Structure formats: C-alpha cells, structure tokens
C-alpha cells in the first residue's frame, strides 16, 4: 500500500435525496490506492446508495467524486473505471461461464486467443478451471459468486465494487469465501469497496471500515479502531456488544453511575453532563473471592452473579449491583476464568470495570434508536 500518495478515490460533500428523503448527507471520504474498504451499517443507512453513486448507477444530487485524479462526478457508468459484483451476481444465464467472463473482454482490441488465455487465467485465479463450459444455473452459489468476481476483474479495472456479495450464501461458504476474496484482493492489489451489513464480515475483511447510519458516516477506522475506540454510541452498539447505562460526568471527568464515580476513558464532556456509560461484556474483569482492590482503585465493584448462560466458548453472566439499581451488567467470562474462580450462580463476587475500557457517549435520541432495526449487535443491559 503506498503510504503518502494522493488518495485513489476522493469523495467530497456528497448529498443524495429521493424526493423529500435525504439518503446521503454531506459524505466526504478518501480511499487510498489498494485499500479494502467496507461500508457497514444497518439496512437503509445509505451504504448501497453511496456505492451506486461511486459507480454512477444512481447519480448523487450534489457533491464531487474524483477517481485516480479524474473528476467522474457526472460520468455515466460506462465511462468510469470499475468492476462490480451484485448480491444477485447478475450472471448472464444463457452464456457459459467462459462467455460470461469474456463478455467485457470483447470489443477491446484483444484477439480471440488473448481473450481465451485471459479467461483461463481468471478461472485459475478463482479456482474454477473445470467449470468453463457450464451454465450459471449448473453452479453452486459460491461458484457463481466467484465467476461474477472473475467477470468483474477481467478487464483489470482500477476499482472493484462489491454489493453485499456474500449475503446470498450459507454461513459456512460465506466464511470460506471471505478469506478467498480478501486473498484475491491482496494478490491483485485492487482498490476495493464492499457494502455489507454483517459486522463480522467487515471486521474480518476490511483494511478500514466506514460505519454509516441515517445517511451519514459515523466513523472511519481500522477494524480494531472501530471496535476498541468507537466514536459514537451507534458505532459502539452496532459493532460488537455493549453494556449501556445512563450516567453523568462527575468531578475530574469521572463517570457517575448511580451514586458511584468511576474512572473512565478520555472523553470530551463537561462536568455534570448527562451521558451513557458503556463497557463491552468481555472487558469486565472477574476477580477471585476475597480480592482486595488497591487503595484508590474506584473501578472495582461488588456484584451478585444473578444468572449464567453457557454460550460455548464463554459464559454470559448477568450481574446485579446495589450501585446500579435495577440495571443489569452483562459480562462474558471465559471458561477458564469460570473454572479458576469457581464462579456459580447467585454468588457474590468482585469485578473490575477497567478505566481504559469504560467509555462515555452522548445519549442518542432514544425513541429514534428504539424504532430502528438494530442488527448485528444490540444494546445489552439498561437503556
């Protein structure tokens, strides 16, 4: 990945409206050459609209798109430089696999033998050299997906657009193809933008994730950044799971939950402001019975282990504390920890909410958040 060069794709102040409905608000984004970007968000967040604007399939209402230094804002798709794979794959049903792949190679000045050689090369690349004479309907979903990919990259476009390419497949195939697609992208070094609503897919594949909601970009960052350092409550909630509790900012920037003040992650709120305190279930640290917190450690808390649920690789535990009142704290304890600390339901224990992992967010408009479809993650605990 070139480090300093000008961005390959530059989107600035992009707006898109359908009548009164505004689908994209003031989107600005830069994509580096060779980068794998995921647009992630719930359905209706505008991610597909943004992709189609980049492709020129649905033109933005206003705003600029530069690709490789060229202003493509108003160009029709045929004059831009991209390959695209749709959710439906859109393979031509009456053409064989090789003819599908060769479709974009024709009329480009290539000879028949060149085309045949390129088709073979692509079929090898996607690992389906045996299937060239078959029709799309004779292939499995995963194979069709790979043919669609081969067709999209046949002409070596500068940009590869993937519109939920894996969502029509069953879970196992999907996981396998994730790696294959990512591998292929790395091998070719092609700048790629993938739209998905599956956070796991985005975390596993992307170099950077663009989290979108209601037509705006909530956060852009690497997978670890958006997971570990979410900038908004929406990002925190949408990716992974998050305990949420109403809180306020106390003296010295501490977080007041109920009557207790906790040390927490850096934030930009003023004292007295109402916020949402949040921590991921796996960040809650269990301590052995009789653990004595160090002096001045305000982040340890006595809780009752109200309920435990075995979820395979860990135990999901619901914790209750006088400090939280009715609110439950959810913690995921590893099997190891449960065995080592002999944790059992109804026992009293000490847990630590590490200051670096306890975050404060601006409260959202709750009514709005409730109404929308919250896929993938989900608020756990008190709202």
């Amino acid at each position, binding site marked *: 990945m070139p480090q300093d060069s000008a961005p390959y794709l530059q989107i600035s*102040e992009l*707006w898109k*409206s359908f009548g009164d409905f*505004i689908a994209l*608000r*003031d989107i600005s984004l830069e994509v580096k050459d060779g980068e794998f970007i995921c647009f992630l968000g719930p359905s209706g967040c505008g991610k597909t609209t943004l992709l189609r604007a980049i*492709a*020129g*399939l649905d*033109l*933005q*209402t*206003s*705003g600029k798109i530069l690709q490789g230094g060229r202003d493509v*804002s*108003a*160009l*029709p*798709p*045929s*004059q*831009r430089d*991209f*390959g*695209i794979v*749709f959710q*439906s794959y*859109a393979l*031509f*049903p*009456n*053409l064989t696999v090789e003819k599908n792949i060769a*479709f*974009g190679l*024709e*009329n*480009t000045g290539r000879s028949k033998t060149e085309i045949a050689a390129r088709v073979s090369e692509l079929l090898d690349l996607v690992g389906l050299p045996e299937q060239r004479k078959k*029709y*799309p*309907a*004779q292939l499995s979903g995963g194979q069709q997906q790979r043919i669609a990919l081969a*067709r*999209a990259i*046949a*002409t070596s*476009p500068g940009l590869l657009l993937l519109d939920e390419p894996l969502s029509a497949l069953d879970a196992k195939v999907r996981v396998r193809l994730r790696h294959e697609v990512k591998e292929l992208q790395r091998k070719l070094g092609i700048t790629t933008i993938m739209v998905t609503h599956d956070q796991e897919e985005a975390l596993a594949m992307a170099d950077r994730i663009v989290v979108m909601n*209601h037509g*705006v970009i*909530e956060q852009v960052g690497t997978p670890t950044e958006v997971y570990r350092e979410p900038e*908004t409550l*929406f990002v925190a909630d949408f990716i992974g799971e998050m305990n949420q509790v109403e809180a306020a900012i106390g003296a010295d920037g501490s977080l007041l939950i109920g009557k207790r003040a906790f040390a927490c992650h850096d934030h930009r709120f003023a004292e007295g402001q109402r916020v949402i305190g949040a921590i991921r279930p796996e960040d809650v640290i269990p301590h052995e019975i009789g653990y004595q917190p160090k002096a001045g450690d305000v982040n340890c808390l006595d809780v009752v282990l109200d309920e435990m649920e075995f979820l395979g690789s860990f135990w999901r535990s619901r914790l209750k504390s006088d400090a939280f009142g009715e609110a439950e704290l959810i913690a995921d304890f590893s099997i190891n920890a449960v065995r080592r600390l002999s944790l059992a339901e109804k026992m009293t224990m000490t847990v630590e909410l590490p200051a670096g992992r306890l975050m404060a967010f601006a409260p959202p408009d709750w009514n709005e958040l409730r109404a929308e479809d919250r896929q993938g993650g989900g608020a756990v605990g008190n709202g």
Partner: protein
Amino acid sequence: MADTLTQALPRGPKIKSKLSRDDLIMRGSMIVIALYLFVTLAFPLYAMLSKAFSTYTFDLTRYEFQVSDENGQFLTPPVTAAKLNEELGALSAGELATSSDGRLPATSFFPDFSFRSPVLYKIRGTTPDSRFLVGSTPHSGTEWVELDSNKFRRVVLRPVEDVGLANFASYFSTPALFSSIQNSLVIATISTVITVALAFGFAYALNRSCMRFKGLFRLIAMAPILVPSLLPGIALVYLFGNQGMLKELMMGESIYGPIGIVIGSVFFTFPHAFLIISTALAISDARLYEAAVSLRASRWRTFWTVTIPGARYGLISATFVVFNLVITDFGLPKVIGGQFNVLAVDIYKQVIGQQNFEMGAVVSVVLIVPAILAFAIDRLVQSKQVALLSARSVPYEPKPSPKADWLALGYCGLVATFIIGLLAVCQFAALVKFWPYDLSLSFNNYRFDIMDGGGWDSYFNSIELGLLTAVVGTCVIFFGAYLVEKSNGFRVGRGVFQLLAMLPMAIPGMVLGLAYIFFFNDPANPLHIIYATMAILVVCTVTHFYTVSHLTAVTALKQMDREFESVSASLKQPTMKLFSRVTVPVCLPAILDISIYLFVNAMTTVSAVVFLYSPTTTLASIAVLNMDDAGDIAPAAAMGMMIFYTNAAARILHQIASKGVLKRTQAWRTR
C-alpha cells in the same frame, strides 16, 4: 450527529448526468417508438374525436343574391339567402345541418328558376370566408360574381364548420340509433354471464378433477381463437336459419337477432374466459383445502369459501374481458344480427352505408365509454392480484373420484361438442354442393375467384398481413418494451410510453379503423401515401393488438435481473450487445408467443381493417364478411375454415419451432 441531522441539502444546481452513447441510443429509440404510437394511435384518435364534435351547417346569412330582369338589368336590390329562405320556407333548420361534404344548390331559393331563362344572377358572400362553388371552381369573399342562368344552376353553397355537441344531440334524438346502446349492453351482459359460467365449469373440471383427455379438451377450448368472430354466425345460420337443419328447435323464434349474437359470442369469447379462469384456478394452495377438510367443512362450503374467493380476481377479470370483446365485436352481429342494431354495426352502417362520418365518429365515442370502463376495471383488478401463491404454497393435486370425474368428463364433452359442432357445420356447409337441396360434396365453394370478396388473393393477402404483422409487430413491441423497462431516468417519457402502450386495448377495432380513415385519408397528411396499401393494414393491426403483446414482453423482461444493464455498462459494453446476446435469447419464448398471437389475430381480425382495405388488399376475413353479405354463405364458410386451418397450422409450426429453438438456445434452463 445531531447538527448534521438538521442540516438541509445544499442549494445550487443538481448534478446532471452526462449521457453515454447508450443512453442517447436508448432515449432516441424510445422517442422513435413513442412517435410511432402517437402517429398510429393518438393522432388518429384525436382526429376522430374532433370529427365527432365538428358540425357542419349552411349559414344562409352569409350569401347575397341579386337577380336581373329579362334584359339583364339588375333593378331589384340584393337579398340574402336567409331572407329568401324565410319567405319561401324552402329549407327547415334540420335540413340546413349537413356533413363536411355538404353542398346546397343555390337554385333552391329560386323556385321559378329555369336554366334557359335570359335572367342573370349575381352572388357574393357577406363575409370574407363565405364559400361557394360554381361547378367545381371554389369561390369565397365579398366580390360579386355574375352568372347566366345556365352557370347559376351549377352554383352550390358550402357549409361552415363549428365545434359543438350538435352531432350528439341529433344522435340521442334518433331512437333508431340510441336504442343500440341498450341492445349492446344487454347482449354483452347476457353473453358475459353465460360465457363466464360455462368457462368456469370447464376450467374447474380440467383443474380440479382427474377426468381423462384433459389435453384434448384444452386444445378444443382454444379452437375458437383461430377463427374470425363471424364464423359461428355462419354456422348458426346453417343450423337455425331459415333453411336450417334444426330450425324447429327455435320454436318460432328467429336466430337472426339477439339469440344468434349471444350464442355466437359465447363461442368466440369462450377461450379468453377459459384461459383467464384456468390460470386463476391453477394457482391454488392445497393447504387451504387441507385446512377445510380438517375443519370438517362440507364440499359445498369449501367451494364457496376457498375455491371462489381464490379465483375471484380471475372471474372478475374474465367478466370484463368478455364484456369488452362482445360489446366491441362487429363481425358476428353483422352476420347474424338481422334487424337488431348494436353499436359496432351502427358505426359500419353510418360510415359505409350512409357515408355519414360525423355520426360514425359519434357512435364510436359512445362505444368507447363502456369499452374503456371495462378495460379500466380489469386493469385495476389485475393489479390487485398479487402473489396469492407464496413460495411456500403447495400446489393443489386433485384426487380421483369416479363419480365427479365422469360428471366433469360429461360436462366438458358437452361444451366441446358445442365448439366442435359449430366448426364442423361450417366445414360441412362449405363442402356441400347446394344447401339444403343437393347435399353431395364438392369443392365448388372454394372457387373464390368467381365470387365477391377478392378471391384467393384475399387469402394470400391475409397471410402476407399475418406474417408482416408478426415480424414488424414483434420487433417494434418487444424493443419498445425493453426500452421502457430497462432505460434509466427519463421518467416522464417512460410514463407517456406506458400509457400509450396500454391504450389500444381500450379502443374497439371499429373505432381504430374509423380513426385511421380520418387521419390517414386527409390529403393534407403526408402519411396519406400509405392509405389503401398493405402498410396501413399492418400498422393498424400491430397497433390494434399492441397491448397484450406489450404486457407479455414486459412480464418476460421483468423476470430478468435488474442489474444486467449495470454489469454491461461497467464492462463498457454497448447495451445493444447485451440486448442481442442476452435479453433476446433469454426472452425467446415470450417473443415467439407474441409473434404467433399477432399472426393469428391478423388472420382473424375484421373490425379495424374493414374500413381500410382496398381492392388490391382485400383480406380473407373481410372476404368472409362480404361473401356472406352477398349471399354466398357457403363460400364464406369455406373461407372461414381456410382461416381456421391456416391458423391451426401456424400454431403447430410455432409449437415445433418453439421446441426446436428452446432446445438450442435454452439449454441453460436445465441443470
């Protein structure tokens, strides 16, 4: 985030897409086809409407005369025609109403006129646009024209055109004309009830029983589509006419009139109703019947609570389609209607019989009203019929039940006998030497060249029309549907196109044909050159049957992935390559269906083309009509059966071709 939510769209011009070459080609082609529809549909209809509202009267105040004495001295003062008419009482107001070709001799106002008299006459208009003819020389304006009496007898006044409802007023004050409205409505209603009931029984038997010979019955039910609607009329004449084989069965009633029209209408509309209802019954969910059985509902109750509601959209749709077909049909009532007037025949009589084009246009407008209503309701119902059958539905499989199956077979046998019977009577009559006196067989009636109607040429003209209509029509209609379905943006243009494409279904053939006369026979129209050629027959027939073909094409195109065009554009390939390499091959079954539909209808249609054929472009279906009109009923039957055999052969060829083509081009359908 909160502040961005309140932010509004920035002002300033919206980004306008630069159009690619493909976009330009698509839009250009769409405009061409839309223009085609304007010229072949919207403009003619407009011409017809304006005709219906134009009135022509002689305005007598516009003319002044001066008469000399026997020595050629003009001593008396000039006098207007109105004044003269008032004094003489020569013409009533009703007599002053006329048509666009009206001519009123000036001598009407001079009862003692004699062309040998030495008296001289002067005539002039009182306004600059007053028109009159001397012989065939047109004059207008306020200049005096002096004529001797021999020339003056050749002076005729021309009417003034006005816009108004006078034509409608005179239509509704002529009981002989407006009684047709009631006649048409009654006939259409009775025929609809009988046809839908019979067709429902037939479709029910085929779909819900385990009777034998289902395939055969399905074929027989579709047979009437292959013949002109007037053929059953001819068969009925042979059966129940004045010299009919079964005349006694009529018990003194005459077949010429409502009874004949109803029986014939049931015959020719049966396939349409059967097809629609059968489709509705075929998509039933077996789980509903299992639920009914488990609730111990009686068969009768199940029928009314499951079967009928499930098929209700089909039934309603069939009702309006049949109603529309009957009320707009012209051939059948022409042959067997006798003195019983219906709207479609009135148009023909007004135009061909009395050359009263304005009144023909008025009747057309009257006929369009129920036709458009029926069409609109049908479309409304069709749009409501959304996926009754979900992906999880289980198709209903009838179980054998000897008693019910025999009952079904018996019923279908009866209906099939009716259909085959009428066709067989026609064939028999065509082969008999001289009905009913000499029943020996001969091919005399096939010597069309010695009869009225254009002879064998008509037959070959019809085949030419059928083939041209199928080829031209399929290309225009399928390509048009593709452009509307798959082009980007251009919303208004596409909306207008869709509307135009749906319109022909609502326009009765007689009305379309008459509209074509008004539009294409206008010498001022540059398209006048196609008048009285095969071209106008092809254009008219394509337009007449546009809607159903368009809908077939649209349905097929809607099943194509929406993103094909996007993929093709991203691969920088021209859309027309995608169209020829992918769209056409995948839609080939639908394309073949459209072409056979157009061919069969071009062979059988009478209504639109009856106004448009010329001596060199007579058609077989028109020949049936004209031979019947001339009393050559047996040759008419013979020609009708020729149409039947030709269409049947075309269907069989189509079937074979479809199978062959499908095998080669649709290999991808099989896994």
